[in-house]
């Protein structure tokens, strides 16, 4: 029972990281109608930025995290300006945006691979004593990852639903052309969205790196975020979070009780089963895919 509870907590904390990723995809998709495939490269970049800051510049963890967030924001907004904005202005089909994003992804991941090599590295942070809660030991990093991830999601919710800028983004998500006619600056919306994307991917990257390992292909975990948002039901933030939690718990249970080498197989089977019995996901209602 204690083991089960431990797995559950661990699953929720990995689910929180998946939710960050799922929300990051949903945000870009809702406004620009394309999947930001470069997102997983941003995540690896964020993790490596923090990794380098700690290992080579001997900075404390929180400072490294801050630097990683800032650098990832710069990268994310830079990619938007260089690769996406031209296509956006030309109103290119979203197929082209997707291909462009895949290109960014390939380039960044392989540059990281070229600089650091493809090996798995342990995130340089001293292991701390787990917290004991009624006999259940909880990894302190799991706890921090969970709390910070939920904190970031809560801040994002406040930003989107309680500020004027958030209103502008939600208006753009409904119809970007009408929104710009109403005086919403499209370029400013793009910068804000890709800034948020940068924050989300950096936080997710650092905590995922701490939990497993830091390596150039670590962004492949964003598949899980996609699976989670399909499972939850495309279209809403709560559904993405529900899907992420379910997937995170399922995965830790599989690696705890069956075998960690079959973990990814089970998440994929989970997706197929959900699609067969709930074609719109667990909470999905219609084909509308908005925030």
């Amino acid at each position, binding site marked *: 029972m204690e083991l089960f509870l431990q797995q559950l907590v661990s699953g929720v904390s990995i689910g929180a990281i998946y939710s960050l990723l799922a929300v990051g995809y949903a945000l870009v998709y809702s406004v620009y109608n394309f999947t930001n495939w470069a997102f997983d490269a941003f995540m690896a970049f964020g993790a490596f930025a923090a990794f380098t800051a700690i290992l080579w510049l001997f900075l404390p963890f929180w400072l490294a995290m801050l630097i990683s967030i800032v650098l990832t924001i710069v990268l994310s907004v830079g990619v938007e300006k260089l*690769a996406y904005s031209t*296509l956006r202005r030309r109103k*290119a089909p979203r197929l082209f945006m997707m291909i462009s994003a*895949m*290109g*960014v992804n390939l*380039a960044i991941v392989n540059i990281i691979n*070229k600089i650091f090599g493809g090996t798995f590295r342990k995130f340089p942070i001293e292991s701390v004593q787990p917290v004991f809660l009624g006999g259940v030991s909880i990894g302190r990093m799991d706890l921090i990852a969970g709390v910070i991830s939920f904190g970031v999601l809560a801040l994002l919710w406040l930003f989107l639903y309680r500020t004027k800028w958030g209103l502008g983004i939600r208006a753009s998500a409904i119809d970007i052309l009408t929104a710009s006619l109403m005086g919403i600056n499209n370029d400013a919306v793009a910068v804000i969205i890709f800034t948020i994307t940068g924050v989300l991917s950096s936080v997710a990257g650092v905590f995922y790196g701490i939990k497993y390992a830091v390596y150039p292909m670590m962004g*492949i975990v964003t598949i899980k975020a996609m699976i989670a948002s399909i499972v939850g039901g495309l279209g809403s933030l709560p559904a993405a979070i529900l899907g992420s939690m379910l997937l995170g718990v399922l995965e830790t249970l599989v690696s705890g009780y069956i075998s960690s080498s079959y973990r990814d197989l089970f998440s994929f089977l989970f997706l197929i089963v959900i699609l*067969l019995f709930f074609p719109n996901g667990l909470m999905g209602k219609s084909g509308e895919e908005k925030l």
Partner: protein
Amino acid sequence: MGYLTAILILGGINIIATLGVAILTGYTGLFTIGHAGFMALGGYMSAILVKELHVPFPIALLIGGTFAGLCSFIIGYPAFRSRLRGDYFAIATLGFSEAIRLILNNTKTLGPINLGGAFGYMNIPSHTNVWVVLFTLFLALLFAHMFVTSHYGKNCIAVAQDEVAAQMMGVNLLKTKLIALFISAFYAGVAGGLLGFYFAYLSPSFFTITKSSDLLAAVVFGGIQSLIGPFVTAFVLVAVPEVLRALAEWRLIIYGFLFVIVMIFRPQGLLGYVEMNLNFARLLWQKWFGRKLAEG
């Protein structure tokens, strides 16, 4: 000579797999980043048939391809039925191919058959030579051309351009997409089989996401709705890294930047929307010889 033959064989195999991706991505507009998984399925299946059951080589290739095609329905049917949009379908294919690779990596033995797990399936009879590849390639190209110019191919193009409009004109979306997926997985399966019979062994490490991105890259650079474009680029993308060994490490970085640049400056790809036919030969003939005749 042996080196040149190797490039021809590997290039030819790559073209066969790329033609499959061209039918799915270029013509039907469905993104795939998991065709390496279908290559693995077809490759292992046909290798097992020849080595363990002594099935004749061409029949084993066909069965391997069909097997890959049938397996594609495992993701195709649920994904298309629930109208998973393009990007999520791409993720499903990626997940599928990673799952296949995981299973192969962890399967040491399959009944009496020693699959070797991560070490690879050894001692496959070596049947692939340059003539086999060229002949298969010829058939593959002929069939792909016949497919995309047929009624079914036109349905595919219609689906790629506007699903709602296509459906209103009476195109069965599910069926059209499943046919395109089946054929493209079949091509990948045959290519995987040829690869196994060429190297005489198969390892799960052949079929990583890098292989899938290479196939997609060939179609993107070659052009949307074109067979001849991906045909040319698939060969070039195999031949150039072989010739310029020094660049091999930079290959994917360069591809990445090229993706972005191509999308900004020539989004339809090198030969996008150029149909493969002999018109260009006739035009060239007229241009070079017609003028001479006229002058003469």
